[in-house]
């Protein structure tokens, strides 16, 4: 077995690392390169449009989670709290503000450029709105483009909602992009990028669905958060993004052919004991310890909702190059946290059934009401509808004060015992029949 301190990386992860290194290097040289920088959010991101204007996107959520993984977030959060931010509020926001107060150094150690534009794609999370109102005060004079994404209140996307968003894109967002960059909106360039998006989305869905195999060749949560990186952030619409998913698909396909299990930081899993569906974001401050509890127990996450925050493609949505702005609107409205609660329950139920999961687990995040409020009801509904054992743990995104390893481990061990017990009972029942 490899040294546990040295994480084992799949080839696709190395490719992604290089993509990210280039991205942050470009960001650190943005001013020299004459590139304008736009800060925006992952859910409902308009990456193709941003790139079509030759701007560089920065995602404060990603900075925050990277800070969490690099053990920097605790200090940043405390600095923001000293400024008056309450202990009760979203730690992504506090981490981002704390990072800014400490020189805005990005994950590669290079300074991130200040924004030329704040693109408030207000999708699925009310706190985004507060976050950028705060940034607007902290970066005085930087324009804000607001894109309000209507919630899927009735469990569907209506024509009126699409029209509302397209009007905002045409009259609020694109004019601000033009004003900041001096470039003119080029619909053909956007459509071309959307063609790439569609190709990447096709590969992404195929990759996710590989987890229907028994054993699953991927972990769709802990490894899934890496896999989703390019398509959910700065690369969707690019050739590199297509190449990444093509490579990843090839790699996962090989694993299926060879009957291999997912790779984790300590190597390849040897046994798939439990197949789980997970709801909610992971904890980032203790990400590896958290993951280890699962793979040590032979638990594989076969589907997760968190990997759908930046776009929900496995229910059929694809960007449409023929209707670029309408398609961006529908993409935004389709992101997971913009679904209403009954839709979320239906989706989880579908995952449990289609991926033949043994259990359903919620990682409830203190900082994230968008996910967390209502999760206890989701849990009851899923239990009633599917009969699978449900588990519930609590942690936080990037505040290390809210990650209690012993508590989480205890709860998970009990949960896995319950799953084991159920398997024995089901087997006995099968034999009796």
């Amino acid at each position: 077995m490899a040294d546990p301190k040295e994480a084992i990386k799949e080839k696709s992860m190395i490719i992604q690392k290089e993509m990210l290194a280039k991205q942050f290097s470009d960001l650190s040289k943005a001013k020299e390169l004459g590139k304008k920088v736009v800060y925006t959010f992952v859910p409902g991101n308009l990456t193709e449009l941003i790139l079509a204007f030759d701007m560089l996107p920065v995602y404060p959520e990603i900075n925050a989670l990277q800070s969490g993984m690099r053990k920097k977030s605790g200090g940043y959060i405390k600095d923001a709290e000293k400024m008056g931010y309450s202990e009760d509020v979203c730690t992504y926001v506090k981490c981002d503000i704390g990072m800014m107060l400490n020189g805005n150094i990005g994950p590669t150690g290079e300074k991130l450029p200040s924004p030329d534009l704040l693109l408030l794609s207000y999708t699925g999370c009310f706190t985004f709105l507060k976050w950028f109102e705060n940034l607007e005060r902290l970066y005085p004079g930087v324009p804000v483009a607001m894109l309000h994404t209507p919630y899927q209140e009735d469990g569907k996307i209506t024509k009126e909602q699409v029209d509302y968003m397209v009007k905002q894109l045409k009259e609020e967002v694109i004019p601000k992009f033009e004003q900041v960059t001096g470039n003119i909106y080029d619909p053909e360039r956007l459509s071309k990028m959307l063609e790439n998006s569609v190709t990447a989305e096709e590969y992404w869905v195929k990759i996710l669905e590989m987890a229907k195999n028994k054993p699953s060749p991927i972990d769709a949560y802990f490894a899934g958060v890496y896999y989703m990186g390019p398509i959910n952030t700065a690369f969707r619409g690019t050739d590199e993004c297509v190449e990444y998913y093509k490579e990843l698909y090839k790699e996962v396909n090989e694993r299926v052919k060879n009957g291999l299990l997912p790779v984790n930081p300590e190597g390849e899993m040897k046994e798939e004991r439990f197949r789980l569906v997970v709801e909610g974001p992971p904890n980032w401050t203790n990400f590896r310890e958290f993951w280890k509890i699962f793979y040590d127990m032979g638990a594989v996450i076969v589907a997760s909702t968190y990997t759908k925050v930046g776009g929900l493609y496995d229910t059929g949505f694809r960007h449409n190059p023929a209707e670029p702005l309408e398609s961006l609107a529908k993409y935004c409205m389709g992101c997971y946290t913009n679904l209403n609660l009954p839709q979320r329950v239906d989706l989880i139920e579908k995952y449990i059934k289609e991926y033949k999961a043994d259990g359903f687990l919620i990682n409830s995040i203190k900082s994230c009401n968008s996910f967390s409020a209502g999760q206890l009801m989701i849990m009851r509904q899923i239990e009633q509808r599917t009969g699978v054992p449900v588990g519930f743990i609590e942690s936080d995104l990037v505040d290390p004060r809210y990650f209690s390893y012993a508590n989480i481990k205890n709860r998970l061990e009990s949960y896995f015992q319950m799953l084991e017990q159920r398997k024995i009972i089901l087997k006995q029942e099968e034999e009796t029949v």
Partner: protein
Amino acid sequence: MKSLETILNECEHLAFDLNFTRAKEWKAGDKNRILVGYLPIYVPREIIHAAKGLPVGIMGAGDRKQIIKGDAYYQSYICHLPRGIIEMALDINLNDFDGFMFPAICDCVRNLSGMFKLSKKGKFQRYFDYPQNFDPFIGGVFYEQEMEKVMDDMYAINKVKVTDDALYQAIELYNVNRNLIEEIYDIRQQYPWRLSAVETYHILRAGITIPVEEHNELLKQVVEHISKERGEPMDNIRVVVSGSFCEQPPIGLIKSIEMAGCYIVDDDFMLGSRWIQGDINRNITPLKALTDAYINQSTFSSAFYDVGNPKGKRLVNLAKKRYADGVIFSAASFCDPALLDRPQMQKECDEAQIPHINFQFHENTGQFKVIKEQAGTFSDSIKLWA
């Protein structure tokens, strides 16, 4: 005319009748009548009135109901308001309500709309998505469509078609209502001892549980009573309380601030009843008038996008308008909107040299000693050194 004491007793009872007895009695008076519950902050109540409905504000269970089931639906780090409301929904309190509106103010209230859907509580459960775009041709159009959805929801129940005449009548009634409330606040600005903040709160909260016609009658009588001298002026400072626009503070908290030597000359406790500033125009089509009012005449709160018109500045202006000596930031625990706004709003107060303090509460907070001491020290420091 009733005595003020009688009115105040009635209002206190109505404000905290979590069974909404008066609203249910009203509904029983006609088979076409419907009850539509709405959560904080604001909904255009006029459209409900015009559809033969009674809009009923559901401001939470406060400290008046023991939470048993509600706690099983919410994690400890989520504010108290939704757990009280789900408790009421799972109990009998909200029986006879036909539908519910959940204004787009935060993720907790948004997801509560889904919990009502999953529980099949009421015949409709409408998340009322406020546009955060304030261009009348973009956000305005969207807002009008949102109102139409609610009208369709109500029509499906009682088959009452909302007419322009009915809407104009409702607009007029609510214009009167808001004017009378503002008159009370204006009188209190000059003579805050004539009606305490607690009494004012009871009067406003009672108003969201009864027909607007009845509330207008009560308000008129209150205005008449407090236009005459009542009570004794005290050596108190004058404060604006900000941050309690959704989950409501317990009465004990408001009382503690007053007893600590602070006249609350403005607040955002029952903000929905005061949301629209000034009259709604009756000279254009009624839905357009309601839309224009939302776009152009809304007051400020943490639930609304404010770039271009920052709420910190608007709070400072309000404090100046009311000749306030200070601002008390009083937000519910775990209220992301209010608490994320607080640092920047405090900064605005600092720049305007307006002293301020802050604390957090739950709607069922039972201990006020610390808050009273904090408010008392604040009051003393202003009296001694301001």
